[in-house]
C-alpha cells in the first residue's frame, strides 16, 4: 500500500472554524491556542490507553475545528475528570474543562455514542438533580442500565442486594423541595441560567 498516498484516518475534510472559535469562548478556552502538542497530557492520563484519541490529539482536533470526530468519539466519555493532565500541562491548559465542554456540546447535539452508559448517566443525573435537588443513586444506575445495556445490570444485581442489606442503597433517598417559588428556590436559579444561556446563544 502506498504509505504516502493520502489516507484520512479522520474525517478531516469537515473542518469547522466556527466550532473551534466557539470552544475557545468557554470558561477555560482562551489559552487553548498555546498548546505545543508536547503530549504530557496523554502521557499522564490514566485512561489514554483505552481512548480512541488521547487528550493531546483532542486538543489539536478542537483547534483545527474537527467537530464531527471530536463530538462523536469515545475519548471524551472516557475522561474521568481526574485533572492529572491539567496540573501537569506546561501551558496550563485546562484539558479537563475542554473535555467537559466537548461533552456538553456532544449531548446538546445528540452526538454521543448511544449505547455508552456514561453520557446517558450524565444526562439522567442532571434530570434527577434538577427535579429533586439531590441525586438518587439507585434510580440513577437503574435508569442508565435500562437505557443502555441491561446485561450490566445482571452483573450488578448481587452487589446491589448486598448494599441494600447494609443500608447503603436506600429506596427512599432524601431530597429538597424544588419549585417552592420562595427565597433560595433551585428552580428559580435554573430558570435564570436558561435565560442567560438563551442570551448567550443569540449573542
Amino acid at each position: 500500500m502506498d504509505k504516502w498516498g493520502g489516507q484520512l484516518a479522520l474525517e478531516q475534510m469537515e473542518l469547522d472554524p466556527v466550532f473551534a472559535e466557539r470552544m475557545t469562548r468557554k470558561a477555560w478556552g482562551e489559552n487553548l491556542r498555546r498548546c505545543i502538542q508536547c503530549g504530557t497530557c496523554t502521557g499522564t492520563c490514566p485512561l489514554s490507553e483505552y481512548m480512541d484519541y488521547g487528550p493531546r490529539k483532542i486538543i489539536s482536533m478542537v483547534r483545527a475545528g474537527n467537530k464531527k470526530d471530536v463530538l462523536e468519539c469515545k475519548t471524551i466519555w472516557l475522561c474521568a475528570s481526574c485533572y492529572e493532565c491539567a496540573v501537569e500541562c506546561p501551558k496550563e491548559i485546562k484539558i479537563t474543562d475542554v473535555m467537559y465542554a466537548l461533552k456538553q456540546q456532544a449531548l446538546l447535539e445528540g452526538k454521543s455514542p448511544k449505547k455508552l452508559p456514561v453520557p446517558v448517566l450524565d444526562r439522567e443525573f442532571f434530570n434527577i438533580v434538577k427535579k429533586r435537588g439531590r441525586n438518587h443513586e439507585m434510580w440513577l444506575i437503574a435508569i442508565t442500565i435500562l437505557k443502555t445495556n441491561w446485561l450490566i445490570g445482571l452483573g450488578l444485581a448481587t452487589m446491589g442486594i448486598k448494599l441494600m442489606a447494609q443500608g447503603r442503597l436506600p429506596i427512599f433517598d432524601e431530597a429538597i423541595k424544588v419549585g417552592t417559588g420562595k427565597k433560595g428556590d433551585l428552580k428559580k436559579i435554573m430558570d435564570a441560567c436558561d435565560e442567560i444561556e438563551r442570551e448567550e446563544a443569540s449573542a
Partner: protein
Amino acid sequence: MKYLYYPGCSAGGTGKAYDESVVEVFKALDSGLVELDDWNCCGATAYMAVDEAKAFALAARNLALAEDQYPDEDEIHIVAPCSACYLGLLKAKRYTEADPKIGGQIRRALKAADLEYKGKCEVRNPLDIFVNDIGLDKLKELAVRPLEGLKVACYYGCQIVRPYSEFDEPSNPVTMDKILKAMGAEIVEWPCKTRCCGGMLTWSTGAGKELNYILLKEAWKAGADVIATACPLCQFNLECFQDKIRAKYDFNEEMPVAYYTQLMGLALGIDESKLGMKRLFVPPKIPTLTG
C-alpha cells in the same frame, strides 16, 4: 468561625459509613458539625458534562445558602468530606470570585432566587482541618486506642488534591499519612496515592475495573492490611468490584477498603457500631482490637 457540614448525596447511601465516621470523629474532637440546611447536590462530574452555567450555579447555591443562614458569621468553613463535593464547591467559589464572566452569570442566577454570595465561605476538606486546625499533636494525644501493627496504604484519589486545593501536594499528598501515623498506624509506601479509581467509569466499563485492579494489586504488593480512602466513590469502586477483578485478573486477595475517618474513629476510642464498620464488604482486622 463556624464549621458547617455539607454531607453530599452519597452520605445517605453508598457513602453512609463516611458520613457516620466523619460526624463521630468531629464530635470526639470537640468540633461538632452543624449541617447546612436545604443543601443541594454539588453537581459532581456528571452535571458539568451537561451544562456549564447550571453546574456552577448549582454548586454556588450552597455557598450562598450558608451565608444566608449564618449572616452574623464573618467566616464560614464548609466541611466537604467527599472529593467531588469538595472540588465542585471549591471550583464554584473560585469562579464566582475570580472569573468576571462566569462569576457574573452565577451571581445573576443566584439573585433570581433572592440569594447573594459575598465571599465569606471557605471550602474545607476534613484532611485539611485535622492537620491544620486541630493539629497532629492533639490527635496523637487523643488516640487512646492506637492502631499499632496496622499497615495502611493511604489513597487520596484525584479531586481532593487537585487542581484547586492548596492544603496538600497534588501528586504526593501526605496529610492522610500524617493523620493515620498520629493514630499509631504504620503507613506503607506505594506508588498509587493519587492514581485514578475510574470514577463513574468503573461500574460500566472494563477500563475502569482495570484501574482498580492496579490499585488493589499495588496496595497488596506494598504489604497493606487495608486501603484507607477519603472519597465515597473511590471507596465504592475499590471495594465493590473485587469479585469481578478476581475473576478476570491474577489477583486472589480480599483487600479491606475503609474510610480513613473510620480508622481514626477506632483509634479515638469511638465504638465500632457508630463508625459504620458493618457497612463494609470486608472489614479490616485491627490488631489492637482483635488482640
